[in-house]
């Protein structure tokens, strides 16, 4: 009897404790984590997933330590270890491969393959592809909501590919979600092939996305507060830009073998640009009046720099001193000298850039009839000169101390970080500095696409395809008209008739106009110099500055430096670890 008792005790203690309850003992705790179901079955959370893509958009002027977004003949930096400095000496590898621990080497640089266009772009592409793949999971949503989600995914897939291929050349077009076991050795496409895929996606996006989110049911709930969202106009404008690039001499040389414009691509670019201009004609977009032009770039009232002219930009929420002088990512780290309580690293405009501003009468300064006076080099110039650039004896702010001293021996001239005698004003409203301290409402953003650029794309594409007075079929707007719209807005007269006779004459003025209008915006000048295949020329490489005394009794043009630009610099190098993974991904020539 006793023995049986003990067996029962043993069984009842050991067996249930250790064996039966072990079945699910190690399983996942219910409700732990966020599941796929939680993310992809409602519009709000699906949109939350797609919002990541907006975050992956790179703000070109928002990165730490002198990013050198211009990289060309527009601005130079005295800090040779900044990425601007590295661009100047042709050290593009240094630009893309900087370690994380290195304080001075642009750890959040926009070209750094760990942080910028490259990695954020591929991450964005992955999110876009997941978003497209998971759409069937979204059952409880309206057709409009589904379209918006699908449209944004196509838009960003194209946008991120575009941002990489613009600087690195043709790349594989990734249109699927990779699983770890998949064969990922997709070969590189040519630039034009890549653009064809990009255009395909932008077309789909343009079909699906609204002209204005305020008019949708989803966006209507927040009428007036939808700035920053991907739209039909943005898709079409970037499509136009991609086509313009694909038909430009550098890219055309890859497939056609000659450094000339490809008129087929120019026609298509013109048509796409005209589609955006039609939206502007409908009232969706409009050019800002000249007095308010800075509202496109920076403000002091805490609002987002977004106008009717803006077509697309990163949603930058940094406001106040944080946006101006925070140690990590701030405007001040790029264009404002330290004495204004910025963050020290300053890229400054070159004399080359200043020389491109015409006289107010519409003539270039080297034209004998222009009236340019080398002893008063800053007088009587295109109004945009004063709007975008600061020079000696001008006040950068309100208080007396903000007066700039770029004469020999002046306070600002002695700053080793600033190689030239100018500062960028475009993003720097009066009063936002350490003397006036009006930085509480400071907010800035770099337009990634604005209507002015669309007109310039149209002008360039039409001029190359049909000549100065041509237009796309069914349109009254000629290349010249489009160009003059931009000039007139800045209170500049029409292009002088000396330059309107043929495509080649007008081409020079269009190139100059792009340089002036789009200066300091997202490396436009550098991209243009590359695609036009002029970046290796001395005119582009030799960087000048002015030297003068306090009383302006003399002005000496001095050469500050010569940019290193060889053939290989037309494309950024890929990171080695990328090109060494498989043969289908060759390194760009010369790297």
């Amino acid at each position, binding site marked *: 009897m006793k023995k049986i008792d003990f067996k029962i005790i043993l069984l009842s203690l050991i067996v249930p404790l250790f064996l039966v309850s072990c079945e699910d003992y190690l399983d*996942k705790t219910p409700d732990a984590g966020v599941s796929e179901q939680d993310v992809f079955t409602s519009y709000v959370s699906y949109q939350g997933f797609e919002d990541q893509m907006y975050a992956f958009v790179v703000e070109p002027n928002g990165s730490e330590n002198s990013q050198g977004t211009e990289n060309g003949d527009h601005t130079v930096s005295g800090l040779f270890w900044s990425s601007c400095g590295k661009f100047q000496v042709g050290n593009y590898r240094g630009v893309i491969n900087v*370690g994380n621990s290195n304080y001075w080497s642009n750890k959040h640089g926009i070209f750094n393959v760990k942080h910028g266009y490259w990695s954020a772009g591929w991450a964005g592409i992955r999110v876009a592809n997941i978003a497209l793949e998971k759409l069937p999971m979204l059952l409880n949503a309206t057709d409009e909501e589904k379209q918006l989600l699908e449209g944004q995914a196509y838009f960003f897939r194209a946008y991120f590919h575009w941002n990489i291929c613009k600087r690195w050349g043709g790349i594989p077009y990734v249109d699927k979600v990779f699983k770890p076991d998949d064969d990922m050795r997709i070969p590189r496409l040519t630039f034009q092939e890549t653009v064809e895929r990009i255009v395909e996606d932008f077309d789909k996006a343009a079909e699906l996305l609204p002209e204005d989110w305020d008019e949708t049911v989803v966006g209507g709930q927040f009428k007036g507060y939808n700035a920053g969202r991907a739209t039909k106009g943005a898709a079409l404008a970037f499509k136009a830009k991609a086509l313009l690039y694909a038909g430009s001499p550098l890219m055309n040389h890859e497939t056609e073998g000659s450094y000339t414009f490809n008129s087929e691509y120019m026609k298509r670019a013109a048509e796409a640009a005209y589609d955006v201009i039609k939206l502007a004609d409908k009232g969706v977009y409009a050019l800002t009046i000249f007095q308010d032009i800075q509202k496109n770039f920076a403000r002091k009232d805490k609002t987002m720099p977004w106008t009717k002219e803006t077509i697309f930009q990163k949603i930058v*929420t940094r406001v106040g001193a944080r946006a101006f002088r925070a140690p990590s990512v701030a405007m001040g780290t790029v264009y404002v000298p330290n004495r204004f309580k910025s963050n020290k690293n300053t890229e400054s405009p070159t004399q080359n850039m200043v020389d491109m501003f015409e006289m107010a009468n519409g003539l270039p300064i080297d034209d004998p009839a222009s009236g340019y006076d080398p002893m008063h080099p800053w007088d009587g110039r295109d109004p945009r000169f004063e709007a975008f650039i600061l020079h000696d004896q001008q006040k950068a702010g309100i208080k007396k101390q903000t007066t700039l001293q770029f004469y020999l021996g002046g306070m600002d001239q002695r700053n080793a970080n600033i190689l030239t005698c100018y500062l960028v004003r475009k993003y720097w409203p009066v009063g936002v500095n350490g003397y006036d301290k009006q930085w509480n409402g400071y907010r800035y953003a770099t337009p990634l696409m604005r209507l002015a650029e669309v007109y310039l794309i149209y002008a360039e594409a039409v001029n190359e395809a049909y000549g100065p007075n041509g237009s796309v079929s069914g349109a009254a707007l000629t290349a010249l008209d489009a160009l003059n719209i931009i000039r007139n807005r800045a209170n500049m007269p029409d292009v002088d008739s000396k330059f309107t006779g043929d495509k080649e004459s007008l081409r020079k003025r269009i190139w100059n106009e792009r340089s002036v209008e789009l200066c300091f915006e997202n490396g436009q000048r550098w991209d243009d110099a590359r695609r036009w295949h002029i970046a290796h020329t001395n005119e582009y490489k030799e960087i000048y500055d002015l030297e003068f005394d306090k009383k302006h009794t003399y002005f000496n043009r001095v050469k500050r430096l010569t940019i290193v630009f060889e053939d290989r610099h037309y494309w950024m190098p890929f990171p080695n670890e990328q090109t060494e993974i498989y043969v289908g991904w060759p390194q760009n020539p010369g790297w």
Partner: protein
Amino acid sequence: MKHLIKIISFALFVILLTGVSLFGQKTKKKYTISSVVVDESGNPVVNAYVWAQGKMVTTDNTGSFSVNLVKSRSNVILVEAENFEPLKISTDTFALVKKIVLKHSEFQAGSKDVVNFVFNKEKQIDVASTITVIDPEELLKYDNQQRVMVALRGRVPGLYGTNNVNGLGAAVVIVDGMEQDPGNIRVDEVEQIVILRDAASRAMYGAQADKPVILINTKRGEAYKTKLKIMGEFGVSDPISYPKFLNAADYMTLYNEALSNDGLAPFYDSLTIANTRSGVDPVLYPDESYYNSTYLKDVSKSFNIQTEASGGNDVATYYVNFGWKRSGGLLNVGEGAKQSFNRLNVNSNVDFKINQYMKMYLGGSVVYDFNKNPRGDFWGNSATFHPDWYPVLIPSSRMEDSILLAAARLVDGQYLLGGTSEYQTNIYGDLVFGGYNNSTKRNLNFRTALDFDLGFITKGLTANVTMLFNLYDSFNTVQANEYAVYEPVTVTLPTGVDSLYFIKHNEDVKQGDQSVTSSDFTRDMNVFGTLNYIRSFNNHNLNLTALAYRTESQVNGEFHHDKRLHFALQAMYNFKGKYLAELSGVVTGSSKLSGKHQYGFSPTVALGWIPSKEDFLKDNSVINFLKVNASFGIINTDNYINDYYLYETSYTTGGLFTYGNGMYKNRRRRINYLKNPDLSWVKREEISTGFQLDLLNALWIEANYTYSKLYDIVVQRKNYYPAITGGVYQYENYESKMNQGGSVAINYHNDKHDFKYNIGVNFTYFVPKALKVEEPKYEVDYRYLEGNPTDSKFGWVAEGFFRDSADIANHAIQTFGEVQPGDIKYKDLNNDGIIDNNDQKIIGNSNARLQYGINLNLKYKALGLFLLGTGQTGQESYFKSAYYWVYGNRKYSEEVLGRWTEETASTATYPRLSSKYNANNFRNSTFWLYENNWFTLHTAQLTYTFSDRLKPNSILKKGFQVYVRASNLFTISDIKEKRELNVGKAPQTRYYALGLKVTF
């Protein structure tokens, strides 16, 4: 003094409680027994312990003893002697046995040599795997150090520091079958410590066993040995050194120099500096140093008292331990002077037989820590507050504004607290008016076990079920008061006379209530069951164990409970005690893995041979003992899988995303990583071999070699997949590393004469190596960790200071910021003319390679001296705290005196000063790297054991000892001063103590 009274009254209370049984039964009938204790050959056993009815007497020179007993009580006596097996006999049989014969204990095979592995037990000599066993009772005879992990230091071959076995990292410390904080245990409470030194010995601990495992088994009551032990120790801690900061005038001068180096105007004018230096008016020109008697005591005092009672009989045994440890702080002001750290602990257990088949064990312990601290961080603030910021105390006579003065709260009735608008924290004010911060930690442990004798099924079969609980919580009680500080300012009156005014900042506010903050809570539960079968067939000895073990740990704020589960079978076998084998098979389960990978199988095997038992060595007079062993094992572990559910795709809900001007917000959803259904166990493969040798009964040598490889470590292979995947990766089993080395221990003892001595040394040498590392493609080979020690330190190679601008121009370009003469120059390792990340290489390693321990134990009659020290070589450290990396507005230490200037260029030991962050100088380089080689004498104890000199039947014969002890007595090292200096926290101390131990 108040505390002392408390202690004494407590001790009396305990004595009374146990004394009831001693004194309460005096009326009973008495009788006397006496006998002689001899060994197997009939020689008398001198100084044998005879326990009877709670008393103990010892045998005299002839081996004889006599003891008075009470008739109606237990008639069992217990006879023990060193090197003999204990013997229990009934007084009823005394008439039959003329002499009590004790048997010599066999080497490593006596009743004291049974190793308790928690799940099973085995005689030490029969264990085939590599272990070290420590008997605290033996230690306590000459070393009264009470921290249980510290007791291992310098004593265990293969052990780095106090808990890192074979360089595998911090050990899992299992206290009575459960992972617990060993800080709660004192050496006095411990029965046995077992250090498991190879994979085979650890295997039964499942997934945890990839790390070293140390078993601490606490004491139980012993039948027929009634003891009441009281121990007290009083000690003082003497600070070794305080940081040396510059005085205000020197600081000002050098800060101006730093500014000038940066091309900036001086901050302090020469009049201020001169007035500060002359001390003309400490209110206007303050120069505060904090490491002086205003703030600090010379020494801090502490005491530690413990009482322990144990005893019992065949049916039930009990054990109780109570202790109180208190140490004071060094601060001498206000709440700081009341600073104290207290620990109360009670640990008790009972074992009792329910019937002939069942035994029960119940145990529990409570550890209660309560610390009183002032608010404010004196040690941190004193290391950062500049000497010139403000006068700490301002004589009230200096304040002319009588209204302000009347409202002011004065320190000691005569001082105002200084401060400025920028610096409103007054170091003295924090201590006197700031309030306090009392922290409390409570740990409750409860253990219960049932043992079943299943001999009725088959002989030798037993079973056990054990349940263990641990509850831990902690909280802080804070009273945070505010106080006003006064900023002195000079104002020039219209008359042209300077006058002193004060600006008041803050108010004096005493909080009416306390706040309770930062509660921390952990709950652990372990359950295990074993089936044991021990049986000998002819010369085959078998010890089989089946185990089921599960743990669960709940931590406050953690969603998932940490759960583990494993099942194990172990067979220990030997043939004639000469050929040993140990086989284990463990099935481990993890909640971090899923599907077919949720369970893994870990096999281990150990083999041993004892040649000294073979005929050819049996009677060898030189080799007394020789054992060789080897083991191999694979252990599955989830220790390096850092989170749950890594096997499935993870999404998280992220921050708010805002469009436009902030109207429409939506939470971002993120994808973190991809699923990997193949995610599996991390594995450790270990081979270990060694020998133990005893020569001439005097020289002991043991050595061991171990190769341990950890592979399939889980990482994300960010550098493997092409960029086009978009940076979302899966977790994979990929990396591997190994650790290889050995240890040697040598011990020589001589106890044949009155002067006895024992000298021991041990050496441990291990080298880790990274075998496979997920790392980026570097442009230079020397940046890879793969193939190099896992603890490599990467840094730049300093080449002195830049001499002048020509030197800078001729040198490779350093890309960490502008350089000027006096900045550190780095070597261009890849000769590309640029100093950047590609110029860093391995310049050191962070773990010591060689560690050695030396101990010396001398005894002359009742007087003993014990010394224990350890040392290490083969490790490098950066000295890079704010004390050494002085830049910007950091407080200037004496380190900067050797700074570079044009005049001192040839002798400078420190780079030129900089008033900003200087990214060029202050980065990991050989300039800041030191070889961290040292030897420290940790313990010296002089002991006088009275009981050795007492009469055989003295009441104190069970134990009576006084000692003086010193800890951390000295260090030998090239960087001794740096090693012994604490900055920003309480100083290191040398500890001196006087102690007393009495056993009744």
